[in-house]
């Protein structure tokens, strides 16, 4: 039976009506095969416009509708909902885009624009004729969350979700949670004590009955799809039994190994067994297998022999025979809070980084400011332990340099440099702090006031110009720069140089992103779906983003984003099941030969071979209806529901038959 079709042409004010003759288009549309109603209206998306569509569907008993208006991205949902409310299956309504694809691009030729609009409407009508009424697909939902990364972003989103009543698993690669925030001494713009703030949050996490933390762990494999992820977690052995250990510290004293402590950015040394950080929450020592002589090459002198820590432990808490473990967690949503690394200062040979001991990066300076850090909070220069009288802070190191380093702005450096310089000046009253900058980006609450206070009251000397080089001079460092405001070349003598290095995504993010099936941008930051409207959604449904893994940001923004992510997941969890669009691929069983090309080509992992029938199935929950398998199938066994090849060919045929008009 032929469908009774209705056509509704929108003027979009003058957006469409000024270049498409809407009366003529309606008259032409009315003549088309199967059309029982055609009319136009000034704003079809307005309430009276939608009412018009609804009333006509009821009065004329329409069983197919084309709304000719703007892009379907704008109002497809609006009209499908309206049609659904009066009993017409939503999928029997289609949008003909006569604005973006017609009126806007043909503003100077009304007759041709009108003809093209009619063509588009005719093509869409032919599609509707073969559209099937569809029902949405329901997907099971596991209301548990996996948070990848236990920095402040991971901690805050985990706490929010756990407090909302959902079980959360945190996977942390390092031996303790806390992330880079645990290396920082105080915050801007209010000089909050970070160890205090952070300890409170870490204690909350550790005490929370709904949060389970896997330290020393990484995601090994991710299977499944939104609502039903299966995460395999690989855990490196800790070697120290936290139930037995009393944190007496005897093992730390006897370990014969001495290596640079990464946590202190090489400003101190540690053994192979060591305390990961200075926080109260990480008192239990950890053993780094890669540094330990017990695990060294058995050919070497010490290989396999050293058991100093085991022998020293009065509680018998160290077991060097521990092996790595694998665990599986079943979750409905994933938070990627993978964080950042500082771009290595060794990329800046012109600043002497790595060669001159008194050129350090900003995180190292944070360690100098920490009362529990390697210098007990005293700013002392690494080379001789003297108090530096002249400190040069260099901003934008590695950032904003598309030619050789990173093109982007690392966002937090302007502020933490001002903070570090002010803290230095507060500690060393007779000292001078110079800051080399290009622009000062202090664009958040109380940030500008914070920077200005440093200039006005704490005598920070801001010099506008990028530093060319740092060399070792006579008893001091010489910093060659320019002051573009006065037009001078400038040389500053310094005791200590602090580099505000660019932030870059955490090492290994490319492999992890591949595992998690999320896209990354050119700088390897995790990509959001839409920078304005979907800022915490990744390219894969059910995987969300928080913190510096998505782009460089400060603690304030990181926490905001982490809480936004937690909010998004709670919205998802407020339903008992998930609903998915039925506009996906389907397989004709009698045509599919089981060649498996579609499985290779599917970017979402939605196609899999049925072991029994040897036919390629479609996982309805995962398929996004992109059409890649349809194009790839050599037998034409796949079709996209309601966008079949037959429908497309008919639409193209409509355009071709009217080509003389267009």
């Amino acid at each position, binding site marked *: 039976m032929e469908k009774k079709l209705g056509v509704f042409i929108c003027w979009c004010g003058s957006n469409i009506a000024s270049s498409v003759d809407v009366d003529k288009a309606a008259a032409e549309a009315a003549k088309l095969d199967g059309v029982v109603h055609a009319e136009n209206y000034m704003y079809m998306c307005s309430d009276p416009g939608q009412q018009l569509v609804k009333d006509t569907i009821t009065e004329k008993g329409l069983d197919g509708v084309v709304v000719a208006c703007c892009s379907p991205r704008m109002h497809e949902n609006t009209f499908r909902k309206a049609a659904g409310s009066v009993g017409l299956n939503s999928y029997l309504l289609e949008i003909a885009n006569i604005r973006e694809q017609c009126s806007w691009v043909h503003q100077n030729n009304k007759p041709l624009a009108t003809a093209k609009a009619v063509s588009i409407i005719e093509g869409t009508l032919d599609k509707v004729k073969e559209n099937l009424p569809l029902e949405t697909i329901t997907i099971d939902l596991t209301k548990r969350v996996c948070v990848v990364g236990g920095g402040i972003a991971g901690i805050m989103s985990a706490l929010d979700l756990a407090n909302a009543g959902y079980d959360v698993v945190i996977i942390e690669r390092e031996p303790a949670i806390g992330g880079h925030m645990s290396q920082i001494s105080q915050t801007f713009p209010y000089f909050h004590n970070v160890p205090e703030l952070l300890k409170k949050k870490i204690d909350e996490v550790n005490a929370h009955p709904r949060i389970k933390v896997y330290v020393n762990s990484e995601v090994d494999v991710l299977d499944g799809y939104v609502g039903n992820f299966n995460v395999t977690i690989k855990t490196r052995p800790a070697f120290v039994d936290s139930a037995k250990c009393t944190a007496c510290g005897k093992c730390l004293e006897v370990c014969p190994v001495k290596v640079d402590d990464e946590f202190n950015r090489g400003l101190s040394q540690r053994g192979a067994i060591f305390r990961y950080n200075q926080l109260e929450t990480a008192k239990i020592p950890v053993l780094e297998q890669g540094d330990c002589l017990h695990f060294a090459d058995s050919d070497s002198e010490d290989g396999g022999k050293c058991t100093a820590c085991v022998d020293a432990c009065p509680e018998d808490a160290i077991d060097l025979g521990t092996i790595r473990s694998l665990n599986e967690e079943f979750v409905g949503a994933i938070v990627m809070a993978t964080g950042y690394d500082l771009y290595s200062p060794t990329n800046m040979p*012109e600043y002497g980084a790595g060669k001159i001991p008194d050129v350090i990066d900003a995180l190292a300076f944070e360690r100098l400011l920490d009362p529990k850090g390697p210098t007990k909070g005293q700013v002392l220069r690494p080379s001789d332990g003297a108090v530096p009288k002249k400190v040069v802070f260099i901003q*934008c190191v590695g950032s904003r340099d598309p030619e050789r380093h990173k093109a982007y702005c690392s966002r937090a450096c302007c502020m933490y440099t001002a903070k570090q310089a002010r803290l230095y000046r507060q500690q060393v009253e007779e000292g001078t702090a110079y800051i080399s900058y*290009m622009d000062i980006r202090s664009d958040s609450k109380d940030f500008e006031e914070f920077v200005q206070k440093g200039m006005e009251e704490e005598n920070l000397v801001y010099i506008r*110009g990028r530093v060319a*080089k740092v060399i070792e001079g006579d008893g001091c460092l010489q910093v*060659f720069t320019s002051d573009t405001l006065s037009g001078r*070349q400038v040389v500053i003598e310094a005791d200590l140089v602090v580099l505000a290095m660019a932030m870059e995504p955490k090492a290994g993010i490319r492999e992890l992103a591949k595992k998690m099936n999320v896209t990354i941008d050119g700088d390897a930051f995790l990509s959001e779906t839409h920078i304005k409207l979907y800022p915490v959604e990744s390219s894969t449904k059910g995987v969300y983003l928080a913190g510096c893994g998505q782009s460089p940001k400060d603690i304030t923004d990181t926490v905001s984003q982490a809480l936004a992510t937690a909010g998004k997941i709670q919205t998802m969890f407020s339903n008992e099941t998930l609903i998915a669009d039925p506009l996906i691929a389907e397989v004709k069983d009698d045509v599919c030969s089981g060649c498996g090309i579609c499985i290779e080509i599917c970017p979402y992992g939605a196609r899999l071979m049925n072991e029994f029938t040897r036919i390629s199935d479609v996982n309805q929950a995962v398929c996004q209806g992109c059409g890649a398998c349809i194009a790839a199938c050599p037998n034409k066994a796949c079709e996209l529901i309601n966008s079949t090849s037959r429908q497309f060919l008919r639409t193209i045929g409509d355009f071709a038959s009217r080509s003389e008009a267009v």
Partner: protein
Amino acid sequence: MKTVISHSQVKSDFVEKVAEISGENFFNCYQCGNCSAGCPSVDEMDLLPSQVVRYLQLGLEDEVKNCKSMWVCAACMMCHARCPKGVDISKIMESLRVLKLREVNAEAHIDITDFSDDYLKRAPQIAMISGYRKFLPL
């Protein structure tokens, strides 16, 4: 002294010509000053290399045409090596020199034997080298 900046000036023939000859887009420059910080010849310059580029960005033709800096530039290309935006200032300096020489006339084409030893000792080498170049209409 007030300086008027107009569209015609910013897009002037002179500025376009400098861009054409040098092949550089000086609007890439965001005035970080790294070129000026590392330039070994700044002591003798009246405008910093970054200022020369700034004047070109604003189309302040007279200041650029009459600056000493283009003759002091030794074309060591340290500025280009350091520039985070990849602007080759030595090319810009060279095109300024070329344009200046074209502006005089074809007779300015030099023959080194025309100059006294005394003059050759004083004359900037970079000007002598530029002086050997072909003359093309502006």
